[in-house]
């Protein structure tokens, strides 16, 4: 449930206690350089979109080439090709060096559970910061508070278009209707809040429930402004909120004055406490960490911990750790490309990711080869963590990660990685410590002459792909 044991690492005496100890506090991010704030990144996003839309398009009307040149210069000025790489460095450095690898794996899990899809420029400027600032601090609290933070975050509101919603009977809606304009709510965010983030379709909600929740959510928006487009912090806009009582999954939610303390938080409380939510998330946790086909016996202790702790995430995580440990020798889980890559790095003490001094950027020229490496490598292995295509995030299923082309990438990466590895590696020690590969396999590795061959033979082997 971590990233494997590196050359210097010892097997913990009590692995379960060691893992559980990591669940109580949020480890610091490990990065020697400046970590950009959410506000700074939103400023850069704003500068990128407004300069492009409001300045360059006017300035270079009819001059396609001039426009492309100016846009490319702007790209550098705002770090459009830089921040995603920086975020990947911070993510990977922290995962490998925070001293709490099990916590970090769970961080990856929750970032993927509340996935932000590859849309507009979120991957370039926002998703990494959302993972750091919204998901991570919530991991030692209650699930319900994570849902509230995520649901009202700029990244998620932007991602699922809730700012588009205008209640038909809201102040804004009435005015628009008087003007003969069409007024409606956007159902995306409400649907995903139920389908993917909390209760899942097994709760049996209907289209009416989705519409009711969209009404309840109407008003939560990132306000637009001329100077910053959509890059303004999320606010509750009472003028767009649909008043009245709306019923979701059989519960009527009453209006308690039109304010941000209104019905949405009540609904999230109930959705988070719904039995389908804990079943769904316990199932997803087991599917992510243990097997493609979790059983009731696996999920039951996690559901129980959820009930007993009232959705306290450390308690849930600790229950998961017990189950994962119980099935260590019984189940082999296919590792997704990013986790597999980081395990390969960790096992060989490879110099990854680029460090703070490598990432110092002048915001003038195109980021150099080394600075762009994180994005390149993740793209090549088919797993850019800030760019899932669908809001249900990256798959946890083996069959979704095995295809000729994806396998070629796993076969080819050792050559790329061998340039990050310094010094001698005792392959036999690593294999023995981390995998239950048969002795014949170890002998064969020993017999290989050069290091690249050993890497090519070891990383894409069954023992590394499945752990």
């Amino acid at each position, binding site marked *: 449930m971590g990233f494997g044991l590196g050359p210097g690492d010892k097997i913990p005496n009590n692995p379960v206690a060691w893992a559980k100890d990591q669940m109580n506090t949020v480890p610091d991010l490990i990065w020697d350089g400046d970590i950009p704030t959410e506000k700074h990144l939103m400023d850069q996003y704003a500068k990128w979109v407004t300069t492009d839309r409001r300045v360059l398009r006017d300035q270079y009307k009819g001059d396609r080439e001039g426009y492309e040149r100016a846009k490319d210069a702007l790209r550098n000025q705002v770090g459009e090709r830089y921040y995603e790489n920086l975020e990947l460095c911070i993510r990977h450095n922290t995962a490998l060096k925070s001293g709490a690898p099990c916590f970090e794996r769970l961080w990856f899990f929750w970032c993927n559970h509340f996935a932000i899809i590859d849309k507009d420029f979120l991957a370039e400027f926002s998703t990494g910061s959302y993972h750091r600032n919204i998901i991570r601090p919530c991991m030692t609290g209650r699930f319900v508070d994570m849902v509230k933070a995520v649901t009202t975050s700029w990244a998620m509101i932007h991602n699922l*278009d809730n700012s*588009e919603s*205008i209640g038909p009977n809201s102040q804004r809606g009435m005015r*628009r209707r008087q003007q003969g*304009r*069409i*007024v*409606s709510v*956007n*159902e*995306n965010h409400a*649907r995903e809040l139920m*389908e*993917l983030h909390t209760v899942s*379709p097994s709760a049996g909600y209907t*289209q009416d429930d989705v519409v009711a929740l969209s009404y309840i959510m109407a008003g939560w928006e990132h306000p637009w402004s001329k100077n910053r487009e959509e890059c303004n912090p999320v606010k509750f806009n009472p003028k767009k909120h649909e008043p009245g009582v709306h019923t979701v999954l059989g519960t009527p939610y009453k209006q308690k004055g039109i304010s941000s303390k209104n019905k949405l938080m009540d609904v999230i409380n109930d959705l988070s406490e719904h039995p389908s939510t804990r079943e769904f998330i316990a199932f997803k946790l087991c599917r992510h960490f243990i097997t493609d086909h979790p059983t009731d016996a696996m999920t039951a202790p996690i559901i129980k911990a959820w009930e007993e702790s009232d959705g306290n995430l450390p308690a849930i995580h600790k229950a998961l750790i017990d189950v994962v440990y119980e099935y260590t020798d019984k189940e082999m889980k296919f590792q997704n490309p990013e986790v597999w890559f980081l395990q390969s790095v960790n096992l060989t003490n490879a110099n990854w990711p680029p460090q703070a001094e490598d990432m110092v950027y002048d915001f003038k020229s195109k980021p150099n080869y080394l600075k762009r490496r994180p994005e390149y490598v993740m793209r*090549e292995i*088919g797993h850019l963590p800030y760019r899932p*295509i*669908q*809001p*249900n995030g990256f798959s946890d299923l*083996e*069959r*979704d990660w*095995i*295809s*000729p*082309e*994806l*396998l*070629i*990438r796993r*076969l*080819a*990466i*050792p*050559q*790329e990685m061998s340039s990050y590895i310094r010094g001698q590696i005792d392959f036999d020690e690593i294999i023995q410590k981390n995998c239950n*590969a048969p002795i014949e*396999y170890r002998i*064969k590795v020993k017999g290989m002459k050069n290091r690249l*061959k050993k890497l*090519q*033979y070891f990383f*894409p*082997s*069954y*023992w590394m*792909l499945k752990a």
Partner: protein
Amino acid sequence: MINRRDFIAGSMTLTMLGSPLFSARAEMLKKKNLVVVLLRGGMDGLTAVPSLDHDLSSYRPDIFVDNSLRLNSDFGLNPQLKHFHSAWKEGKASVVHATNIPYTMRSHFEGQDLMESGGKTPFAESTGWLGRGINSSNLDGLAISLPMPLLLRSPISVDNFYPTRMGAPSPDMLQLVSQTYPSGSLLESTMQRVMARPISMMSSNSSRDAKDLARTASRMLAKEDGPRVAVFDLDGFDTHASQGNGNGEHSDKLAEFDEILGRLRQGLGNAFDDTLVVTLTEFGRKIEQNGGNGTEHGYGTAVLLAGGLLKSAQIYSDWPGLKPKNRYEKQDLMATLDARSIYCSAMAMCFETDFEKLRREVFWNEPLEDLQDQLFRS
């Protein structure tokens, strides 16, 4: 006729040319290509092929495509669909309108799952209709993407291609790694395919731009011994906001599809006459625009078809009309035809497999209509 010995000898060479699982049956058939283009996000049939009904412009005052090309007295074509339009003029493009897969719940994740699985219950199937059709017909397919789409998954493994610049290890090393995979596992069968690839497909410097991929794919499809099925994956059709009209964002997405069509046609050359290109999306969009100059998830949409295997340039539709009483739930364009009838017919024609067999084996014996006589040349 090729005898067994020749076939084996021949298939070795052919393997080198890029068709790892070349089957005996494929050798016997005249090669007809089926290219499926996934339009993810909900393609708006009324932006691609707008009805010329005056009502439409009143339902969509800000996003109506007012500069459409005329297809017939009732329908126009989005001006971005240029290659589609030239094929239309030659009788090599058709539209099936007011159709969709039988799914009305308006969720992308369920809808995209169903458009690919071909089923009715979301997330119930782990294989796709095209994968099962290929399997039932004993043929091979190719996905032009890094992840394998559900659409092409089947009990047998199917190929995918997306060039990498990283260097792959030697064939000997692949053999060694392969020996660590349990026999009969998906890893093992996938490795077999990798090992059968020509070096040029292991890693290369070719571009991964959609247009260039279309060119690469069309060259492979054009070969007598190449794959017969290709799948392209396009996303971004989910235009809730600022959808725009004939020059807007939804139209830009259609232009991307059209560019792929153009490249395919160019690369296929004469083989375009033995090819069918067909689109697939999870649902159409609501008839009326929303408050943000976009459209919400709907139901009925249009399926675009191109290639020389079509019978004629036609709009095949039992058109339901746009008025609220004619709509699905008073909001969406009604689908008057189960789009799976088109896909089942397309496979029956391209794979020369009995429609009824495919209906049974691929679509669980559901009541689909054989449209081969209506849509395709005999």
